[in-house]
C-alpha cells in the first residue's frame, strides 16, 4: 500500500467504519440508560424538577468556591483541556472546511498561531492531568486501565495534529493520514468508555438537579 493509498483508505472506508461505530455506539449507550426509566415521585413537590434539572446542566460546570479552593488543580487543568479541545476541533480552518464538506455549514476560524498555541497549552494540560492521575493518591486509587487508554486516545489527535501542521517526522501525506487515524481511534473508543460522559453528563446533571429541584434545593 502506497502512502496515497493509505491516506485514501484512512479517509474513506476507515472513516466510514469509525463513524458508524461512533454514532451507533453513542445511540445504544444513551438508549440503554433511558429504557431503564424512572418511577414518578409521589411526594408533594416543593420546587420544580425541570427547572432544577436544567439549572444543574449549567451550574455543574462551575464548582462553588470552597470546593474550587480544595481541588483547584483538577478544576483548572480540566477546564483548560476541555476548552482547548473544543477550540481546536471547532475553530481551526481545516477542521471547519471538513465540517462544511459534511454538514454544509461554515463559520469563521481562529488564526493558526492561536490554534498552535492552544494545542501546546492543551497538550501540557493533558500531561499535567496524567501526572496528577498517577501522583495523586485518590486518582491513582480510582484509576483503571480504561482511564489511561482514554487519556492516550485523547492526546493522540492533538500530538499528531501538531506534528502534521509542523511537518515533523514523516511525509505530509503520512502525517495527515496518521492524524485522521488517531481521530478514528478516538471515535471507535468513544462509545465503550467514559468518553461517553460528553453526552451522558447532560442526563446525569439533569437527573441530579431534578431530584434536588423537586425538593426545593439548588443543586
Amino acid at each position, binding site marked *: 500500500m502506497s502512502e496515497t493509498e493509505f491516506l485514501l483508505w484512512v479517509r474513506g472506508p476507515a472513516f466510514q467504519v469509525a463513524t458508524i461505530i461512533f454514532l451507533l455506539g453513542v445511540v445504544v449507550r444513551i438508549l440503554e440508560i433511558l429504557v431503564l426509566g424512572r418511577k414518578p415521585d409521589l411526594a*408533594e413537590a416543593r420546587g420544580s424538577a425541570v427547572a432544577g434539572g436544567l439549572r444543574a446542566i449549567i451550574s*455543574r460546570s462551575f464548582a462553588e468556591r470552597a470546593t474550587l479552593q480544595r481541588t483547584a488543580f483538577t478544576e483548572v487543568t480540566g477546564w483548560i483541556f476541555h476548552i482547548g479541545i473544543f477550540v481546536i476541533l471547532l475553530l481551526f480552518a481545516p477542521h471547519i472546511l471538513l465540517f462544511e464538506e459534511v454538514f454544509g455549514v461554515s463559520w469563521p476560524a481562529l488564526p493558526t498561531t492561536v490554534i498552535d498555541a492552544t494545542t501546546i497549552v492543551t497538550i501540557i494540560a493533558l500531561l499535567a492531568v496524567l501526572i496528577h492521575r498517577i501522583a495523586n493518591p485518590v486518582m491513582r486509587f480510582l484509576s483503571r486501565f480504561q482511564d489511561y487508554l482514554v487519556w492516550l486516545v485523547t492526546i493522540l489527535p492533538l500530538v499528531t495534529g501538531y506534528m502534521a501542521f509542523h511537518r515533523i517526522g514523516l511525509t505530509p501525506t503520512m502525517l495527515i493520514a496518521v492524524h485522521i487515524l488517531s481521530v478514528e481511534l478516538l471515535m471507535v473508543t468513544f462509545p465503550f468508555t467514559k468518553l461517553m460522559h460528553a453526552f451522558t453528563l447532560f442526563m446525569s446533571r439533569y437527573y441530579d438537579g431534578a431530584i434536588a429541584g423537586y425538593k426545593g434545593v439548588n443543586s
Partner: protein
Amino acid sequence: MSGASLERGLHAFKEAIDAPVASFFSSCVRCGLCAHACLFYTETGDPKYTPIHKLEPLRRVWQQEYSFWGRFAKALGLSRPVSDDMLTEWETLVYDSCTMCGRCSMVCPVGNDIAYMIRRMREGMAASGHAPQGLIGATQRAVTIGSPMGVKLPALQAQIRHIEQDTGLKIPMDVEGADYLCLLSSMEIMNFPEYTESLAKIFKHAGVSWTLSSEAFEATNSGIQIGVSEIAAELVQRIVDAAEKLKVKTVISPECGHAYMAIRWEGPNLIGKPFNFKVLHILEVLDELREQGRLKTTGKEAQRLTYHDPCQIARRGGVVQQPRNLLNMVADDFVEMPEAGTMNWCCGAGGGVSSNERADELRLKVFNRKKAQLDAVKAEGLVSACSNCRIHLEEGLEEYHMDIPVLSLTETIAEHLAEDKT
C-alpha cells in the same frame, strides 16, 4: 432481613438501577473530586473513602447487566461477578463511612447523585446479609417494639405525665380532628423531653391545635437507613394510618433530619401512593407561625450562636432559610459557619452511622471537620434541629475538649416566647 443471600442481594442491586443511576455510572470520569467533599476522606486521607468507590459493587452490576459492552464481556466470561467476599469488604464503606449526607452529590462535575445511589445500594447490601449488626438490631426493634431504641408507649406516657406535672401544660394524645399530628424521635423521648415540652408551650402560645398519637409516635425509620424498603414502608404506613384515623391536616416531623427525609420525601414513594395530608418539618411550622405573626418572642441570647444544618433537613430536604429566620428572632450574635447551608459538613453520625457501634471510633475521628468549622467562627453556642446530630455533636465536642453547649432550635424558641398571650 431473613433469608438473606447473595442471590437476593444481586437481585436487589439490579432493581436499584434506574435511568438516573445508569446515567451516573456512565458519566463518571474518576476525577476524584467527590473525595474532597466527604469528611470520611478529608479527615482520614484514606482514598478508599472516596464516595464513588463505595459504590463499586453496584457499578459492577450495572456494567454487567445494563451496559452493552459489559454484557458482551460477561457473555465471553471476561468479567468478574460480585461475590460475597466483595460485599463483606464493602460493608464498612457503605454503612460505617457514609452518612448519606449528599455533600459529594453537590460537587460532582457530571452531576452524580452519589447519596441517591448509596441509599439504593443498601437495599442489596441488606438483602445479601451485609448490613451491620447495630442497624439490624435497631430495625428489628422498630418493627416489633415500634422504636429503634426500644421505647414503648408507657415510657412516653410516663414522660408526658412528668411534663404535665412540671409545667401544668396539657400534652394532647389521640385527639381526633386536631390540625397537626406531631411525631417524635426515640432520642427525644429518651434524652430530650424538653422538646415535647417546647412543642406544648409554643403551640399553646400560638393557639395551634395538635396531638400525639399513641399508635404512631415514632418518626425515625430504620428501614431506610439499613436499606429494606418493605420494612421502611411498614413503618411509614403506621404513621399514615394514625394520621388518617385522627383526620389531621398535617403531620409534623420532629427535630430529626433523617425522619424528615423518611416521612416527607420517601414516605409516599415507599407506600406507593400520595399522602392525603401534608408533611412539614417542625422548623417549617415554626417559620409559618412566625410569618403569620403568631410566634412572638422576647429577649435574645447574648452569646455568639451558630447553626449546624442537618444534612437531611437542608441539603437533602430543602429547609434552609427557615432556621435562619427563627434564629434571628432569638439571637443577638448569630454567625454562619463557613460552608453553612446546603454545603454544610455532616456531623458524621447520620444515615445509621450512630446506630452502628462498629463505626464509633471513625465518626468521632471525622468530627474534626465540624471542629474546624466551629473554630473558624469561635462559636459560644451551637444550635441545631436534629436530635441525632445533637447527641453526636455533644459527644464530639466532649471528645475534642470543646466547651460549647448544643441547643435545640425549637427549645431555644420556646424559652424566648413572649408571655403577653394567655
